[in-house]
């Protein structure tokens, strides 16, 4: 499908750029800060630096010459080394999701980077091309996608002609793609384009609204405080400070103008940040896969086969709850990139109602039940009764040391009391947020004190369950349930103090999973 080839020549430039970026601090130190210095060690330091850089450059070129990759009909094969030859094979079946990241560097040269992630542990878990032409990225993605789709179909339908049809269709797809590559245009075949359904495209209004949920304008408060203390430090004489404050208050309009200007600046910054990060956010899907892409300057896109979605999480922070927004996240078994590139979250600022319908839209095999069961009242009492070891320990320490806070002698029991109230409140809030339901082969659990998380998964995707009952829970006739899903790191989800009969039916529900599981 793709013959044995070397990486894109520009990947050498990319590695060089990275090398320079990483040694930036050293360069700054050796050649800028100590420019005039003629000391002995600096001289040798510079020589060592030149040697290091030359070795780096040689190894970049050497690596480029000695590593190759190919993609056949089943797997990627990655060859590297001359003396120590390694050959790595990544079968398409193991690819969980595909990530594409286009930085400014890539846009400059009209290329992109692509990463295929597997669920395997360790270093060799991913196949990454740091620089690849757009058309080749498209082709690689299609090869993997075609294989994944074919694989899924082959399992679903046992009739042989289906498989051969799928293979034919896939081969056709590749055939169609070839002339496209020579044209150097990156358009998908027209048929494919029609199939893609756009579920969401962020509008200006959405992002504008979203930029407020991050509360970035609150940055103003520390700025004001530090400004005030700066003024105070500047005029240590209290009379001056007071008179200054008085003149400030006298000319209140100056003060309010300043605050207004600061407010506008911080809001504007927040909006710009949100626009750069989430601008152009788009969620599309076709019959088999979900595609998410985002970013104005640096573009990141992510695609996953629908069957590879392990669980769905809907998270609501207090601010988002206030605005009726929610974050929808897809849990996948492949590793996610560095935090800033994370694109597994569908969209952090979806209106709640739209979030539920969208899950059903893009994942037709998922059903979201809106009505869920509440915890029995008795678990509230249990939660309030449960000793909080953290509180006991902190109170013990406070009692022993009796620290003075803000010159308060009685601070220790006040802190302890505040902590107790806080713990109790969060337990009560968690009680009211907790909802659960088992519906056919779905489980939905919602938990969380301040930020609530709704977790939806299918029982065939849950890899392990656990039911625990401590002494108090046994008295009250309740239990805790715990599910484990594949992800990196493994996703644990717990719901505490649900009624015993529900825990039992949870166990039976899970043991019935063999009905839905497809084996090969």
């Amino acid at each position, binding site marked *: 499908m793709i013959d044995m080839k070397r990486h894109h020549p520009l990947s050498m430039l990319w590695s060089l750029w990275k090398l320079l970026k990483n040694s930036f601090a050293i360069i700054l130190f050796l050649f800028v800060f100590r420019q005039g210095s003629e000391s002995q060690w600096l001289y040798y330091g510079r020589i060592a630096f030149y040697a290091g850089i030359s070795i780096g450059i040689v190894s970049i070129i050497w690596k480029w010459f000695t590593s190759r990759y190919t993609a056949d009909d089943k797997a990627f094969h990655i060859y590297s080394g001359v003396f120590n030859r390694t050959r790595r094979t990544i079968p398409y079946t*193991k690819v969980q999701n595909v990530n594409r990241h286009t930085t400014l560097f890539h846009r400059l040269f009209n290329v992109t980077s692509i990463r295929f992630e597997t*669920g395997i542990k360790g270093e060799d878990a991913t196949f990454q091309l740091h620089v690849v032409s757009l058309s080749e990225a498209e082709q690689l993605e299609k090869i993997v996608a075609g294989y994944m789709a074919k694989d*899924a179909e082959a*399992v679903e339908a046992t009739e042989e002609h289906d498989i051969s049809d799928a293979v034919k269709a896939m081969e056709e797809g590749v055939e169609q793609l070839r002339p496209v590559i020579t044209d150097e245009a990156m358009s998908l075949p027209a048929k494919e384009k029609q199939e893609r359904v756009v579920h969401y495209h962020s509008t200006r209004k959405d992002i504008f609204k979203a930029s407020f949920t991050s509360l970035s304008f609150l940055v103003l408060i520390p700025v004001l405080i530090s400004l005030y203390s700066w003024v105070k430090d500047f005029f240590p004489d209290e009379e001056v400070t007071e008179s200054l404050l008085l003149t400030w208050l006298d000319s209140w309009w100056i003060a309010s103008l300043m605050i207004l200007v600061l407010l506008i600046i911080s809001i504007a910054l927040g909006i710009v940040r949100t626009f750069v990060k989430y601008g152009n956010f788009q969620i599309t899907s076709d019959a088999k896969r979900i595609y998410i892409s985002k970013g104005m300057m640096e573009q990141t896109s992510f695609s996953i086969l629908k*069957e*590879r979605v392990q669980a769905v999480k809907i998270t609501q922070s207090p601010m988002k709850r206030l605005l009726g927004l929610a974050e929808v996240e897809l849990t996948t078994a492949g590793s996610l990139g560095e935090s800033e590139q994370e694109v597994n979250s569908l969209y952090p600022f979806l209106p709640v109602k739209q979030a539920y319908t969208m899950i059903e839209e893009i994942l037709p095999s998922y059903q979201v039940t809106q009505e869920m069961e509440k915890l029995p009242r008795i678990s509230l009492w249990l939660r309030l009764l449960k000793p909080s070891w953290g509180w006991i320990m902190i109170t013990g320490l406070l009692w022993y040391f009796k620290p003075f806070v803000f010159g308060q002698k009685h601070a220790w029991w006040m802190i302890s009391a505040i902590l107790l109230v806080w713990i109790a409140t969060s337990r009560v809030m968690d009680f009211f947020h907790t909802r659960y339901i088992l519906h056919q082969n779905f489980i939905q659990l919602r938990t969380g004190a301040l930020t609530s998380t709704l977790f939806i998964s299918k029982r*065939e*995707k849950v*890899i*392990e*369950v*656990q*039911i*625990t*009952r*401590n*002494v108090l829970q*046994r008295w009250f006739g309740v239990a805790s349930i715990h599910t*484990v899903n*594949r992800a990196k790191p*493994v996703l*644990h989800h717990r719901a505490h103090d649900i009624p015993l009969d529900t825990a039992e039916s949870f*166990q*039976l529900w*899970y*043991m*019935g*999973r*063999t*009905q839905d*599981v*497809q*084996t*090969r």
Partner: protein
Amino acid sequence: MSIQWKPPEQRLSPQAVKLWRISAILMNVIGFLILAVLLILDSIYGWKTWVGWILWGVTAISVLYAVWDIFIQPSWLYKHWYYDVNEEFLQLKRGALTKVHQIIPMAKVQSVTTNQGPLMRKYGLYSVSVGTMGSSHEIPALPEEVALALRHQIASYARINEVDE
């Protein structure tokens, strides 16, 4: 077709209680020796008073813990440990105070290992640990033939592959 569910009934080797008791005694003896050395050093060199307080406090707690560790815990642990394995699931049920019931689908089992420490060898016991994608679970103290048979059984059941992987 799903197999009718029943709670796990297989038990550990009764020898386990003896084994745990002996290892607990050994550990506690070592612990108390260290404490004794520290207390002697304290009385010779006259360390700060609070050091002495802490040492005596630790000793008191250690005595209580030793009673629990040697006399109560081994028999409770044995009494409340059940496991079961069938074609579909590995079930572990344990805990006297906090009851834990784990259910692990066979298809998600990735590895089975049998281990034997020096003390265990004396009693002819093995522990079997089962690794999954998420974690690893251990069935402690099984007689040799049971442990080896179980390892075999789990390995053969775990051969089923789910489409997901």
